[in-house]
C-alpha cells in the first residue's frame, strides 16, 4: 500500500516524508539529532521521558517528537528557546531523582543520561536531591541481574522489553506519583519471580538501573592463583560482539584476537564452546531421530515436536509458563554445560589434572548462563561444572583493565583439546543456527548425502523474522533409516520469547504440525543476547548475524559430525551419542516452576 507524502519544515528546511512518520524520524532524515531516552528502536513508543520535545508552530504545547506523527504544513523547531529550556529542565529533573555517583558507577562512560547531562552542561544543582536511601539497596538476589532503583529514570524500556519482546512480564510499573517505580510481582526479589534472566532489560536500560551481576574479581583471583588451572570457553556469538566494546564497529569478527587476549589475561587454556555445540548436534540430532523412530516405527507415545535446549532463558521460560511442554525439550544440556561437564572429566583426565584444582570459566553473550551454571543439576563432574560465567561486556572490561591494545593483537588459535570446531557450531550464535546445523548433520546421517541447499546454506532458517518455518522432504534414505523415507520434516524457529510464545500456544493447542523447534530466548539469537555490548538494535544484530555466517563460510569444516575432536571423544570417552556416559554428563532434566 503506497503512503501519502507529508510536507513539513523542520528548522526552516522543507522535507517530505511518508504519512505516519514521527517528527523524530523526519528530523533524522535531515540529520537533526533530537535526544531521546525512553525511545528504543526495538520497542513501542512511550513518549514519557519528554527529552525529545520540540516546538510546533501554532501549538501551545511542545510535542514529544518520538510520539507525534507529522502532519501537512507543520513547522517544527528542534532547538528553540522553549525547547532548550524545557529539555534542560527535564534532564535536571531526571538527575535530581538519579543516584548520580557517576565516577563509581558500573555504567560510567556508557550511560545515556550521563551523555545528555554532559551535552547540556547540567551542573549547577538547580533542584533538590530526591534520591531515597532505601532505593540504593541493590537487588542482587538473582545470579544474573542486579537491579538498582536509585539509578532508575522510569523510562520503562525494561518493562516494555520484558512485556513486548519477551512476553514474560517480570518487570512492571508499580505505585504512582513520587512512589512510582519499576518492580516485580508483590515487590519480590528478582530470583523469586518469573524472570528468565535473559538480560534483555539490561541491554535496553539507558542507565545502570539494570546491570549484569559481574564476577570479574572472582575470575582474576582464580587466574592469579598458581594452584588453580583455569580453563575458559567462548561462546559463538562473543566473537562477533566483543569488538564493539573495544572500539570496533558492529559486525567485526575478532575470534583470533579474542583468543590472543584471553591468553594474555592468563587463562591456562583457551577453549571453544563451539566444540560442544558440535557435540550438541550429535546428541540432539540422535535424540530427534530416536524420538521420530519411536513415534513412527514403534508407535510409542513420545513428546513431539522436540525443542532445543541451548538457551537457558528459554528453558526457565518453559519451566514457568509451559510446564506442560517440558517433555518436549531436548534433554541435552546447553553447550556451555556440556563443556563444563567434560572439562572437569575428559579434559582433566587427558591433561592429568585434578578437577578439584580447576576453575572453569565461560565467556557468554548471555546473562541467563550465570543462572544456569548455578543450577543444582549442573554438577555432573562431581563439582560445579562451570564456576563463573562472564558476559561479553565483562570480558571487554577485563581486557581494558589488563591494558591490552586489542586491535593490535595478532590472531591466535584455540588450545586443544576441546578447541576444535566447525562452521555448524559457530552459527549457533544466530537465530536458526542450531536448526541449520542439525539439518546439515541429520540429513546426511539419514541419506548419506549433503543437505539439498546451495553451499550448505539453509537460507529458510536464516533472517530476523520472529517465527520461521521450513520443510525438508527426506528421500532415498539409507537402509537403516527406511522409516523416514518420504517423510516431510517440518521445523520451526523462534527468537525472542514473545515469538516463542506464539509457537508454544500453537503446540499446546495441538494446531502445530512440527517435528523440531528451535527457540532462542533473545532477539536475533545469542548475537542479541543479554550479555552482548550495549546498545542493541535491529541493524546492529543484523551485522553481528552477517558476521556469524561469514565466520561459517570461512571454516574448512562446516558439519558438526566432521569435527575430528568430536569423532575422537566418541572413540575415547563417550562411545556413542545418547550412550551411558553421555547420559550422565551431557543430558539433564527440567523442573516445573510456578508463575509467582
Amino acid at each position: 500500500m503506497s503512503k501519502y507524502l507529508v510536507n513539513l519544515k523542520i528548522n526552516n528546511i522543507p522535507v517530505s516524508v511518508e504519512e505516519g512518520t514521527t517528527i523524530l524520524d523526519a528530523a533524522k532524515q535531515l540529520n537533526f539529532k533530537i535526544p531521546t531516552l525512553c525511545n528504543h528502536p526495538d520497542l513501542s513508543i512511550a513518549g514519557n521521558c519528554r527529552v525529545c520535545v520540540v516546538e510546533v508552530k501554532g501549538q501551545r504545547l511542545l510535542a514529544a517528537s518520538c510520539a507525534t506523527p507529522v502532519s501537512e504544513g507543520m513547522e517544527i523547531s528542534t532547538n528553540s528557546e522553549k525547547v532548550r529550556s524545557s529539555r534542560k529542565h527535564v534532564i535536571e529533573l531526571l538527575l535530581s531523582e538519579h543516584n548520580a555517583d557517576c565516577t563509581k558507577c558500573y555504567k560510567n562512560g556508557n550511560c545515556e543520561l550521563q551523555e545528555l547531562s554532559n551535552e547540556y552542561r547540567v551542573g549547577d544543582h538547580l533542584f533538590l536531591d530526591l534520591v531515597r536511601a532505601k532505593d540504593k539497596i541493590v537487588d542482587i538476589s538473582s545470579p544474573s541481574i542486579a537491579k538498582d532503583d536509585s539509578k532508575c529514570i522510569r523510562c520503562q524500556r525494561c518493562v516494555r522489553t520484558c512485556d513486548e519482546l519477551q512476553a514474560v512480564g517480570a518487570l512492571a510499573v508499580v505505585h504512582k506519583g513520587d512512589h512510582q517505580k519499576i518492580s516485580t510481582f508483590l515487590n519480590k526479589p528478582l530470583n523469586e519471580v518469573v524472570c528468565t534472566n535473559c538480560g534483555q532489560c539490561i541491554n535496553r536500560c539507558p542507565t545502570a538501573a539494570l546491570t549484569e551481576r559481574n564476577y570479574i574479581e572472582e575470575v582474576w583471583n582464580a587466574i592469579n592463583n598458581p594452584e588453580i588451572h583455569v580453563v575458559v570457553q567462548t561462546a559463538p556469538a562473543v566473537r562477533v560482539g566483543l569488538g564493539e566494546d573495544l572500539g570496533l564497529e558492529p559486525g567485526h569478527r575478532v575470534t583470533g584476537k579474542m583468543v590472543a587476549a584471553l591468553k594474555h589475561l592468563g587463562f591456562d587454556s583457551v577453549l571453544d564452546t563451539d566444540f560442544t555445540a558440535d557435540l550438541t548436534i550429535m546428541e540432539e540430532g540422535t535424540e530427534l531421530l530416536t524420538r521420530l523412530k519411536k513415534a513412527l516405527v514403534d508407535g510409542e507415545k513420545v513428546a513431539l515436536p522436540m525443542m532445543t535446549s541451548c538457551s537457558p532463558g528459554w528453558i526457565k521460560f518453559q519451566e514457568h509458563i509451559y510446564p506442560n511442554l517440558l517433555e518436549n525439550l531436548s534433554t541435552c544440556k546447553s553447550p556451555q554445560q556440556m563443556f563444563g561437564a567434560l572439562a572437569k572429566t575428559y579434559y582433566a583426565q587427558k591433561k592429568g589434572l585434578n578437577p578439584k584444582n580447576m576453575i572453569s570459566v565461560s565467556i557468554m553473550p548471555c546473562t541467563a548462563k550465570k543462572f544456569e551454571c548455578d543450577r543444582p543439576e549442573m554438577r555432573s563432574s562431581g563439582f560445579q561444572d562451570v564456576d563463573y560465567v562472564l558476559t561479553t561486556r565483562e570480558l571487554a572490561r577485563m581486557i581494558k583493565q589488563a591494558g591490552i591494545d586489542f586491535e593490535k593483537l595478532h590472531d591466535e588459535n584455540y588450545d586443544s583439546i576441546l578447541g576444535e570446531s566447525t562452521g555448524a557450531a559457530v552459527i549457533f550464535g544466530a537465530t536458526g543456527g542450531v536448526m541449520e546445523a542439525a539439518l546439515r548433520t541429520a540429513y546426511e546421517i539419514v541419506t548419506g548425502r549433503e543437505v539439498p541447499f546451495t553451499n550448505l546454506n539453509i537460507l529458510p532458517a536464516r533472517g530476523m523474522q520472529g517465527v520461521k518455518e521450513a520443510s525438508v522432504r527426506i528421500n532415498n534414505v539409507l537402509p537403516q533409516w527406511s522409516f523416514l523415507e518420504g517423510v516431510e520434516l517440518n521445523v520451526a524457529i523462534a527468537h525472542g520469547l514473545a515469538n516463542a510464545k506464539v509457537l508454544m500456544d500453537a503446540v499446546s493447542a495441538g494446531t502445530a504440525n512440527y517435528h523440531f523447534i528451535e527457540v532462542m530466548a533473545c532477539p536475533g539469537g545469542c548475537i542479541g543476547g543479554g550479555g552482548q555490548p550495549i546498545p542493541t538494535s535491529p541493524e546492529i544484530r543484523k551485522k553481528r548475524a552477517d558476521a556469524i555466517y561469514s565466520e561459517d563460510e570461512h571454516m574448512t569444516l562446516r558439519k558438526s559430525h566432521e569435527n575430528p575432536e568430536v569423532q575422537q571423544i566418541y572413540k575415547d570417552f563417550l562411545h556413542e551419542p545418547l550412550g551411558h556416559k553421555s547420559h550422565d554428563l551431557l543430558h539433564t532434566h527440567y523442573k516445573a516452576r510456578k508463575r509467582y
Partner: protein
Amino acid sequence: MENKTLKKIDLIFAGYTSTKYKVLEKTFQKTPDEIINEVLDSGLKGRGGAGFPTGLKWKFTKNQESDVKYVVCNADEGEPGTFKDREILERVPRKVFSGMAICGRAIGAKEGYLYLRGEYTYLVPSLLKEIEIFEEYSKQYNYGFKIFIRLGSGAYICGEESALFESMEGKRGEPRNKPPYPTVSGYNSKPTVINNVETFATVQVICKIGAQEYKKLGTTDSRGSKLFSVSGDTPIAGIHELELGMPLQEFVDEFGDGDTKAVQVGGASGHCVPRKQFNQTVIGFEGIPTGGSMMVFNSSRSMYNVLHDYLEFFTEESCGQCTPCRVGCQQLLKGIEAVKRGERPPSYLEDLKRLAQTMKIAAKCGLGQSVANPFNSIIDNFREEIIY
C-alpha cells in the same frame, strides 16, 4: 464584555417527573445530524472543565468510519472541591443516561459506559436500577443502546480521558500520547465520545427545551448555566446552578463570609484569584473556566498551606509516567518547603515558576500541564505568605 449578573438557575435538577425518557422519543425523531446541530447550536462546552465544544466532539466521532463506536461518561469526579457529578448521579441519573443515549444515536454507538470513581461505589445499586428502567424503554422503542458501569479505583489520573480508557481496558491508568484523540481512537482503540456527567445531563436539558431557549443563558463564549460546587469559608456550601459569565465579585458577595481573601476557581488544578481581582474576573471560558469547583478562603487561611496541600496532592496523584510531572511536582513541593525553611533564597521561587512553565508545555497530559495554574497564581499573589 457582556454584563452578566449572578443568577440562580434550576435546569439540571428540575422537571424530574414520572414520565420516563420522554425526551428520547422526541429527540430520536431527528436525524443524527440534526441532533448534532442542535448541540452545536446550543454552544454547549464540556462541563468537566476543559471546555471543548460538545457538538464538535460528537461530529468528529460521527465522521469516523468504524463499525464500533463508544459513548463514555466520565464520572471519575476527582478534582478536589468538585462534588456536583455525585449529586447528579444520585438525583437525576435518568438525565445522564438520556444524554448518553442521545449521543449514541448521534454518533452511531451501541454501547455506553459510565466510568464511576471508586469512592462512589455506593451509587452502583441505584444506578443499576435506573439502567434496568432505561433498558426497558430502550427495548420498547427499539433504541438498541446499552449502558454499562465500570468502576475506577480512586486514582485522580483516571479522570484524564485516555488514562480512563486504559483503566477501562484493565490496564494501568496512564495517559496516552495524543494524537490520536478519543474521537479517532478511544476505548478499545475505537472512536469514542467521552463527556462529563454534567455535560450529558445538560444535553438532555437542551434536547428538552431546545438550543434556542438554552443559549439565552450565559455569554457568547460560555453558553448556558452550570453547577458549582461551593466549599470552604462560606455559610452556604453546596451545589448551586448559576448562569455562566458572572463576575467573581458577585459570586463572593453571595457566597463569601464577608472576609474572603481568595477563591480557588476550578479545583486544585485551577487558578487562585485574590480579592483585588474579584471585580475583573469573569467565571466562564472567556475568563476563568471551571469544572465547577469554587473554594472560598477567608483571611484565617495560610495560602502556603493551601499550595502545599495542592502540591502534595499532585505529587501523590501524578501517574509517575512522565518526567516533568513526576519529578516536577516533587521539586515544586520540596522547593517551597526549602524556601519556607530558609534553605533556598526567595529568588528560588522564580526558578520554580520557570519549572512550572516547563511542566505546562512539556508534561504529557493535563495533570502536569495544569500544576502551573495554582502554583503561579498563588506564588504571584501571596508571595509573602510563601516566604515568611
